[in-house]
């Protein structure tokens, strides 16, 4: 090979590597800056009272975001209860029946649902749940978030199970194990890490959603454990307080943002540990 | 697998060998003791059995080569078993020849007392037994020893020939029986030769060394 050609190729190679590294840095830096900024501003609000006290009216010192934390937890639980089992079951069906007509249309529906703007989902749930029930509620908010979680869990389950080699299913069937037991006791356990990842990602995602809750959970200045009543959530609180004219409330919003970000970060770390411990190599 | 089938094969070969040895001894006994039934037995019972065995062993050897693709010592063993099988069958044929000549001779008066022929037969059967022993024990020394003893049997045959020539020259009526006796001695000499073949095969099988068509101590 001609020598100058070779040199050109080596330089191109190095240049490409440099560009890739540069772009990686460029994409990480803003993330780190955001994280740093949030934590820096929010850390001032963090205290024990912050977690356990209710918000105080404007002008008063102190106060906390306990109702938002409780509300967020309630919403996530209500969202997860139906959507996790439904999503996993749907994912199992889709991965086991790749050639059926139902699979084709269901897969399409899941993709469409995933692409639907969250505010649209909020409006739909408003029409279907809030109006018939006669008022905003944690229940409606949970439904909206659940609808958002569903497609992610379905896809994660379907993709995880599709990656499991068919030889595992064959091995189980050849032992005389019935089909449903093969799925429940061999295939699902083998896919546990991927499915859990799907659940955790979708939870992290909906924990930070605001738009759908505007028309469903609506928000609440007080603590509320009743599912039929409106409930506050961290993103709602952040939205309301950040757009308010009061600097004290801005500070609370920073604190709440910090809490939310740390929560999502923790979920992601948990997810990575889960993958490392439970992932099955084929 | 291969080992088991090989052991079975060797067992069958030894069966064939002992059958043939028996045939030789019976034919000589039939001659010296003038027992017609024994001689008929050799021709009508033993020989078909020996032929059957020969075919079975040959088939088994070919099948084992097809099935196991044996290498090195295993391959040499199977090939030599095939050759030995052949040699034993020929020995059987010679035993039949002896019996046929004997059947003629026992109807006639003795030409001369039978001394050398039984001696040849004894030597030949001992050579067969020793060659078998050398095969089973892979005893190279014994195999070489047997090859050397072939000269003894050759010497005996020459002696019988010279003796009978003088008898035939003296008395023409003994020509026919004498020729039969000469035939018998030739058969015994051939049997001894076949034993040395077997010993050469044993040496090849055990050590991969070829000693045939020449002197023993090359």
């Amino acid at each position, binding site marked *: 090979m001609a020598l100058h050609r070779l040199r050109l190729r080596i330089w191109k190679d190095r240049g490409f590597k440099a560009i890739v590294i540069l772009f990686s840095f460029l994409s990480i830096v803003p993330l780190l800056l955001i994280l740093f900024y949030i934590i820096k501003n929010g850390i001032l609000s963090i205290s024990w009272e912050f977690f356990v006290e209710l918000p105080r009216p404007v002008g008063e010192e102190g106060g906390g975001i306990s109702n938002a934390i409780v509300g967020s937890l309630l919403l996530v639980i209500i969202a997860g209860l139906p959507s996790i089992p439904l999503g996993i079951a749907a994912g199992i069906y889709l991965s086991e029946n790749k*050639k059926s007509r139902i699979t084709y249309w269901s897969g399409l529906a899941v993709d469409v649902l995933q692409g639907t703007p969250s505010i649209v989902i909020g409006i739909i749930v408003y029409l279907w749940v809030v109006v018939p029930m006669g008022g905003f509620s944690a229940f409606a908010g949970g439904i909206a978030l659940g609808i958002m979680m569903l497609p992610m869990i379905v896809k994660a389950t379907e993709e995880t199970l599709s990656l499991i*080699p068919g*030889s*595992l299913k*064959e*091995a*189980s*069937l*050849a*032992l*005389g*194990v*019935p089909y449903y*037991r*093969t799925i429940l*006791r*061999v295939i699902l*356990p*083998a896919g546990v890490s991927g499915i859990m990842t799907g659940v955790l990602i979708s939870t992290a995602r909906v924990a930070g959603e605001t738009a759908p809750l505007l028309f469903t959970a609506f928000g609440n200045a007080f603590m509320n454990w009743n599912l039929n009543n409106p409930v506050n959530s961290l993103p709602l609180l952040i939205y309301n307080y950040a757009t308010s004219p009061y600097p004290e409330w801005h500070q609370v919003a920073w604190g709440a943002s910090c809490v939310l970000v740390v929560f999502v970060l923790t979920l992601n770390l948990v997810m990575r540990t889960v993958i490392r411990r439970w992932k*099955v*190599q*084929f | *697998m*291969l080992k088991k089938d090989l052991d079975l094969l060797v067992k069958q070969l030894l069966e064939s060998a002992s059958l043939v040895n028996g045939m030789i001894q019976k034919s000589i006994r039939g001659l010296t003791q003038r027992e017609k039934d024994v001689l008929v037995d050799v021709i009508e019972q033993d020989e078909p059995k020996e032929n059957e065995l020969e075919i079975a062993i040959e*088939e*088994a050897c*070919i*099948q*084992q080569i*097809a*099935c*196991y*693709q044996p290498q090195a010592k295993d391959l040499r063993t199977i090939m030599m078993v095939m050759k030995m099988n052949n040699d034993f069958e020929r020995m059987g044929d010679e035993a039949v020849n002896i019996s046929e000549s004997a059947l003629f001779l026992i109807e006639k008066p003795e030409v001369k007392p039978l001394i050398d022929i039984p001696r040849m037969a004894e030597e030949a059967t001992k050579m067969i037994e020793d060659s078998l022993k050398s095969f089973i024990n892979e005893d190279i020394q014994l195999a070489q020893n047997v090859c050397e003893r072939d000269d003894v049997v050759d010497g005996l045959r020459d002696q019988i020939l010279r003796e009978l020539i003088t008898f035939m020259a003296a008395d023409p009526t003994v020509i026919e029986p004498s020729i039969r006796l000469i035939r018998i001695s030739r058969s015994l000499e051939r049997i001894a030769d076949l034993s040395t073949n077997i010993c050469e095969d044993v040496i090849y099988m055990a050590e991969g060394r070829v000693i045939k068509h020449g002197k023993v101590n090359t």
Partner: protein
Amino acid sequence: MESAILKTEGLSAYYEDNQVVKNINLSIPEFKITAIMGPSGCGKSTLVRCFNRMHEMVPGARIEGKVFLKEENVYDMESITVRTRIGMVFQRPNPFPMMTIRDNVIAGYILNGIKLNRSKSDDIVKQSLKEAALWDEVKDYLHKRGTFLSGGQQQRLCIARALAVKPDVLLFDEPTSALDPKATSHIEGLMADLKNTVTIILVTHNIAQAGRVSDFIAFLYLGELVEFGPKGRLLTTPKDKRTEEFLTGKFG
């Protein structure tokens, strides 16, 4: 004549409209190793999968004809019952990665929800691993996952797992094609020992393996049973020209 433990009558197998196994009448003798041999794509894997009813698990697959296990029609029985009486070992070793070695051996019981008391399950584990010539190598590691085992050891684990449910027949679908020569000869030796207690049907495209291991050979070509007989005779004096051509390497 040995008694036949498995018999097919007019067995044909289809994938949609494609006929892969054509009208096969075969008798498998008990406590012997029968090799099903033929070039790639001749239908031998499909044929044995009709025995343990794995063929029907493929969408669009169907069969015609009958398969008898000890006089009972396999297609009149519950498919899961059939599979406990006719076990299978696959081409690529497939132990359950989430289970310990011990649990892998008795997986046939665990996954079916059959509870065994501790001593009984210990016995089954030990005996199956001994029959699969794996006991000495793993007896101190029963509670570890089997991922550290070599390919040959994993395959023997799969054999132990299949033996633990005490089948009448064991199907081996090209069990050594993913293994190195040493592991292959281990497994071949193992099969020779196993045939005293289980009838073995071995699918292979490797003529030499069929010659070493089997007692009988069935030669399949393009879905048809061309010839069946004792291995020595079939390999030296085949009756059908197609068998002759396959053995001398003209195709396959």
